[in-house]
């Protein structure tokens, strides 16, 4: 299995046969793309829940003031 790896050293791995910049940019972009589109919705969910909670409290406040 391990000998199927195409690189014998880490430097070679980074270099990608001379196309390091392009290859790593693509993988980097792809990673950012995937991460952003997973993390943002997850964080947004937390934000929404927090906001909804705050609003619920505020509404109760208004209600108790009115009565």
């Amino acid at each position: 299995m391990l000998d199927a790896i195409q690189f014998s050293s880490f430097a070679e791995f980074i270099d990608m046969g001379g196309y390091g910049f392009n290859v790593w940019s693509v993988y980097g972009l792809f990673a950012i793309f995937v991460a952003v589109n997973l993390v943002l919705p997850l964080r947004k969910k937390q934000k929404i829940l927090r906001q909804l909670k705050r609003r619920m409290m505020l509404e109760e406040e208004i209600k108790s003031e009115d009565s």
Partner: protein
Amino acid sequence: MWLWFSKLGSPKWFYELSGKWLPWLIAAMVVFMTVGLVWGLLFLPPDYQQGFTSRILIVHVAVAGTSLAFFPLLLVSGTITLVWRMKLADMVAKNAAILGAWFSFITLATGSLWGSVMWGTWWEWTDSRLVSMLFQLFLLLGVISLRSALEDSETAAKACALLSIVGCINVVIIKYSVEWWNTLHQVSSPVSMDTQSPNGPEFWIATLIMIVAVYLFLSVSLILSTRNEILERERKSQWVQDLVSKS
């Protein structure tokens, strides 16, 4: 059928069901993504002609192929919004437009990074796939900006649905007309995407795995953001209130 349809249209039902699916989808996505990326980065043998840049291609092709799915998706959800007035369809459509713009952009970016190696230029107007992908991005951005411009969410839903339908017809026409236009300019074009290099079966298997991984990613991301949308738009309903007070 109708029952199923209206049930699927119920945000609450979708929220609960998708909550059950999500872990499985995420697990599958992680597995495919890891296999695809590790294989792609570490094990894929270099192409005899393109060297290690074929590693770009597996990502590019997966993202490019997936990004073609967005206008059909918008067409379907737009029709549902206009005809059956299902709120859920619009929640999906809203996020699909944004995600689709991301996909188109990544296709363009990875394509350029690949082109800069193969063609020596980052951008080439004589290639029809590039140009039509660029205009697909523009159309998606048009849908997004229409939505952000319209204040009333119900108006926005219907307006975007209509625009998506019109846009989908247009994407097809644009694609064909750009292709046609392009054949007239081929002469001076440096290279074309169709100069297929003989890639081994391993390459295609890696690509296939990446395609599956990217489709899974699409669905996970879309479901996550749709769930958020549901929470926001249904915030007054009892079940969301219960959910909030429990959390």
